[in-house]
């Protein structure tokens, strides 16, 4: 396999693993974030605070906890997940889940009372008002997806601890950059870094464009 082919393979793996992790985290985190943003209970602030705190969880700490859980003697050892792409997906999904919840909840909370009251006074019923708040939270939801993917694709700790950087199996862009740099292949490391940054930029441009289309569609 040529170096170019190897870079393409690693890049595609990174995209697949982090994309799937973001998708899983968003599927659970965004509804939970909307629920917390719309809820008017006392426990909401506390829960939102917890998720905000978890946003900055060190990746190696999460990687270590998952390593213990996935290892043969761990509670999920029977599934033999350690050093598999699935372990990577689960680890990254757990890492970015609080980001999706937090950003969505914060956006929704900030908009909730004003947009809800506007919709109600213009004649919407309670369900219509809630739909209006969710629709207005779209920017925050897309930001949550963007931040989640960026964090997942650029993290190193979980990928190293539960992925193991196995060539052709769990090697992703960040673990490759770390490996090539320690090998003295700084130029290759830099090339991979450019690829990583390009992915993040392109992903966010595409997401921004998608947001505008979704917004247009929601108002049709």
């Amino acid at each position, binding site marked *: 396999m040529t170096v170019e082919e190897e870079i393409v393979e690693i890049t595609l793996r990174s995209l697949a693993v982090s994309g799937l992790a973001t998708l899983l985290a968003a599927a659970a985190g965004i509804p939970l974030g909307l629920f917390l943003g719309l809820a008017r209970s006392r426990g909401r602030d506390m829960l939102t605070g917890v998720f905000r705190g978890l946003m900055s969880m060190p990746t190696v700490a999460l990687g270590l906890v998952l390593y213990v859980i996935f290892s043969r003697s761990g509670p999920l050892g029977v599934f033999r997940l350690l050093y598999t792409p699935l372990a990577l997906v689960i680890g990254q999904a757990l890492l970015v889940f609080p980001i999706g919840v937090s950003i969505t909840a914060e956006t929704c909370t900030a908009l909730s009372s*004003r*947009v809800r009251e*506007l*919709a109600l*006074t*213009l*004649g*919407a019923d309670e369900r219509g008002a809630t739909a209006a708040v969710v*629709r207005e939270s779209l920017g925050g939801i897309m930001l949550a997806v963007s931040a989640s993917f960026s964090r997942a694709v650029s993290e190193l700790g979980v990928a190293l601890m539960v992925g193991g950087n196995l060539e052709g199996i769990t090697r992703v862009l960040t673990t490759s950059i770390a490996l090539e740099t320690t090998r003295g292949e700084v130029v290759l490391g830099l090339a991979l870094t450019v690829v990583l940054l390009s992915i993040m930029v392109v992903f966010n441009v595409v997401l921004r464009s998608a947001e505008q289309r979704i917004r247009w569609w929601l*108002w049709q």
Partner: protein
Amino acid sequence: MAVIQLRSVTVHFGPTRALSDVDLEVRRGELLSVLGPNGSGKTTLLRVVAGLLQPSDGTVLLDGTPVSRDTLHGLRQRVTMVFQRPVVFGTTVFNNVAYGLRRRGLSESEVAVQVEEALRLVGLDSLSTRHARSLSGGEQKRLSLAMALVTQPELLLLDEPTAYLDAEGADMVWRLVESLRGTGTGIVVATHDLLGMTPLSDRAVFLRAGHVVSTREAHGHVMDGLAAIDVVAPERNVYHGHARLLPGSSTGPYRALVQIAPSVTIEALAHHGGEVRVSVPPEDIALSVTPVISSARNSLHGRVVGVERHGDLAVVSVDVGVVFNTLVTAESLARLDIREGTAVYVTFKASSVRVYSAGAGTGGGDMHDQS
């Protein structure tokens, strides 16, 4: 006949009591002014009337029937509120105005016609395809008005309707309000800017610290902001007086001496002499215990006759021959050791004095203070 009635309505926000035992009725087709300083409960009152806030205590009646959870949506379909701070949806101007019509199930062709008409009324017809959030604050305020007007509410609630607007925008709002008179649409205008309020009210209600402290009725006549201001005259330092223009500049406004009591004459800027009404905003008056050397043209010596604390602020009443109310921070109050009986100076600029023709606003006919 009353559309909405509030009976003994009280609203708590945690330990804070925003409205206390308020009784009020809003009649069909009338223009009711709700006046009062910031924080007096005007917005809370409007939100209760709009069905956006449930009272902690008391009853809201719609056409004489208590509003329940089941009838709340019906109330909101008939009453529309325009918020002080404009709130718009993140879409085009057109979609924003169309929102209320679509909720009412109108066809898209009807929606298009009515949206166009509403935008024309507020002068935004050329901006219908623009993103609403790209508009200026004043334009968003106009848009908010169009969003409400297009729903043709039975009762339109305007919270500080001229906030964020320039003079031209404010004129447009008052013209719109005037144009709705006689159409059967009831209008409630809440404002703290009493002198900036120009629509002719049928009634005025004054709120202070969540209480309705005074209600004034024009009894078949109408009254403007200046007539309504009599309700709160002592708080806003409003006095009748006689103005004498001083020789000097050839174009107005002219320096003028206004005698507001036998022993009290203040300097102001006026366009004409004769009988006038003057107002000195309490927040524009500086209080000191020694004479102040400054550019301010008015410095009057008197004695403190009252101190009323409101959180971090205090209203200090000073008798200089007439009583001036001044607004100072609690910190200044403590630093200057001001208490009842303290000899003080009240100082304000001639340009802080607002001068109005004494005739303006007195056409309210037979008005009765019901406080």
